[in-house]
């Protein structure tokens, strides 16, 4: 358009930018995780904020005990079936925009706990933005995940993020209601019954529809 050049010449003290870039820059520079330690991964999560690893360099060190003040939920550890409704409620209580990091093998897939007591992947309950492998992951891996999440945040549009009614949010991730993703139909005969589906994150689905 060239409009920004005209403005820059006429008003040199004014900086023009896209609204998305400006807001995403503010959002990604101060991610506030919710304090939600579930297992041994939580020890590494705490360690990521210590002086040695210093997550504060990337603006995500303010762990909040209230989900109302948090942007990121770091699911650090195995999610038992008894804990799953609690986790979902905490996620529902977080205001938009909100993101989820699934930390470690157990939160991502159930890990070694392939049994009745553990939810086989936290993505059956909440939409996950970044997965971290490892058992437990090192603090550096969590920091890397935060940086990946910052990349993801910077590519979003403000219009993707708004509070939706709780009923709709709950409806959106009821397992089994979503189409099976690519490749899994071919492997359907060999996959165990307990993992028949995966869930895309919410704004990914909204874009495709």
């Amino acid at each position, binding site marked *: 358009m060239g409009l920004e050049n005209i403005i820059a010449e006429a008003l040199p003290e004014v900086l023009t930018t896209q609204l998305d870039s400006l807001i995403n820059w503010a959002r990604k520079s101060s991610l506030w995780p919710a304090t939600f330690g579930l297992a041994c991964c939580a020890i590494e999560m705490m360690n990521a904020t210590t002086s040695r690893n210093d997550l504060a360099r990337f603006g995500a060190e303010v762990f909040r005990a209230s989900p109302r003040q948090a942007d990121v939920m770091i699911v650090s550890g195995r999610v038992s*079936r008894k804990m799953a409704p609690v986790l979902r409620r905490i996620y529902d209580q977080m205001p938009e925009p909100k993101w989820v990091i699934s930390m470690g093998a157990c939160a991502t897939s159930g890990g070694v706990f392939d049994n*009745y007591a553990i939810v086989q992947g936290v993505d*059956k309950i909440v939409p996950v933005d970044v997965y971290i492998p490892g058992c437990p992951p090192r603090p550096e891996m969590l920091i890397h995940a935060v940086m990946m999440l910052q990349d993801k945040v910077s590519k979003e549009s403000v219009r993707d993020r708004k509070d939706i009614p709780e009923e709709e949010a709950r409806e959106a991730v*009821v397992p089994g209601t979503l189409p099976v993703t690519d490749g899994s139909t071919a492997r359907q005969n060999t996959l165990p019954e307990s993992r028949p589906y995966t869930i895309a994150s919410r704004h990914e689905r909204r874009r495709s529809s």
Partner: protein
Amino acid sequence: MTSGPENIEQPTEQSTGSESTPSHPLVTALQREHPEWIGEVIHAFGETTIIVPREHIVAACSFLKTWPEGQFNFLSDICGADRGVEEEPRFEVNYHLFSTTKYHRVRLKVLLNEEDTHVPSVSGVWRTANWHERETFDMFGVIFDGHPDLRRILLPDDWQGHALRKDFPLRGYEPYSLK
């Protein structure tokens, strides 16, 4: 009944056989006083197990707690066990008793058929039995008659089945879904 640290250093070759070992004096004393409580006595690995008929378990427990020679004032544990679907009797409930004054232990065992998994509650004897019995109910479906609050304690409230039974599938009956 093992009697504390002096028994630990003894070689266990004679204590592993159930027939060859002479009974502990406390067991013989108990047998003399209440023979109807004792179904069978098993000595193995330096431990004593008394199989108690189900209807006598509360009387035996309250007696052992206050008995001057026993003084089993501490209930270490109550746990269930599933011997297998085809076994008869299928279930057992184990009571691990310990005396903090005499420093000895004994295990009481109640055997149960699959059709009738009722046991009288001992939560009136030791109050700590409350949660132990809830856990045994939760995991094995053993029903403790007279328990003040027999609810699930570890598994979610809406859980179907009893998770530690041998015929319970390892991954549960259905994949998780939030309802």
